[in-house]
């Protein structure tokens, strides 16, 4: 019994180290890819803590959904956008007062969470469950399934609707727009490189009327292609 307690303590310490170290890695790495990989470490540590608390199904789901799907999605977006370059974390900032204020508010949030949760630990406000016991008949998957499809079936249906809406929204958002949705006079596109312009510029084109210039050019190209 003592050996079990020691093992649990050691596993908890390792998991806590991985969780907090990974979280610090997420917020302190200069490269978004490194941050995503640190996030994987944190998610695995949390899964380890789920196992320690006998939530085996959630541990598996945590690894599959978070580690397998969400982080991969993050990495896909990072690679797709090509933003995997290093950014300066400690350079100059427009509002220098932001940083200490941010750290201070985060510390206050963590302290409040600690105090709030530890104060309730002495006298838990909820009563022990009578219908959905974790240690009831069957394993934790059966208990979760029974609770999910009886007590929380309405929430389950709403979650399905939410996922459908999210998929449709993602498709609509990620589709390439057919025309520029923003007024280009107000937000002009960046000008192309001047040396490229010099190569393309035709000195004779300046004399032609702007309206006429658009039409003859494709015909000339077509004649060249047919003659060749």
């Amino acid at each position, binding site marked *: 019994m003592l050996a079990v307690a020691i093992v649990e303590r050691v596993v908890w310490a390792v998991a806590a180290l991985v969780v907090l170290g990974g979280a610090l890695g997420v917020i302190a790495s200069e490269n978004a890819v490194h941050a995503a990989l640190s996030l994987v470490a944190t998610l695995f540590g949390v899964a380890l803590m789920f196992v320690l608390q006998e939530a085996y*199904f959630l541990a598996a789901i945590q690894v599959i959904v978070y580690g397998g799907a969400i982080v991969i999605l993050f990495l896909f977006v990072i690679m797709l956008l090509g933003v995997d370059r290093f950014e300066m974390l400690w350079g100059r900032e427009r509002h220098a007062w*932001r*940083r200490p204020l941010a750290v201070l508010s985060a510390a206050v949030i963590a302290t409040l*969470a600690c105090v709030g*949760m530890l104060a309730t*630990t002495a006298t838990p406000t909820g009563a*022990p469950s009578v219908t959905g016991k974790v240690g009831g008949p069957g394993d934790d998957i059966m208990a979760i399934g029974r609770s999910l499809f009886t007590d929380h079936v309405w929430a389950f249906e709403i979650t399905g609707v939410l996922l459908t809406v999210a998929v449709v929204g993602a498709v609509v958002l990620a589709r390439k727009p057919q025309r520029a949705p923003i007024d280009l006079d107000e937000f002009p596109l960046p000008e192309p490189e001047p040396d490229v312009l010099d190569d393309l510029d035709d000195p004779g084109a300046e004399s032609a009327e702007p309206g006429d210039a658009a039409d003859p050019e494709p015909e000339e190209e077509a004649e060249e292609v047919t003659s060749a």
Partner: protein
Amino acid sequence: MSQTAYLVVAAGLFGIGAAGLLLRKNVLVMFMCVELMLNAVNLTFVSFGRSLDDVGGQVSVFFVLVVAAAEVVVGLGIIVAIMRRRADATADDISMLKG
């Protein structure tokens, strides 16, 4: 191992996530910090569910997971749409809706 130990780790994880959300300006990393905070909440749910011997905590984690997945899908879609227009956009640059 008492519930307290897990709650302290969860509070620390939530604090680190909040600090990252406030400190970083890369929108992708800010999203990851939101995930950290959601994970801290999940850990708290499981801890309290275990100490009260109620499976409701684990069911709540299930729902949080689904909502987090939906949030990531929509959020990354928005980020892709923003980045397509401006390659170097940080959270400070996306202020056109500012009043």
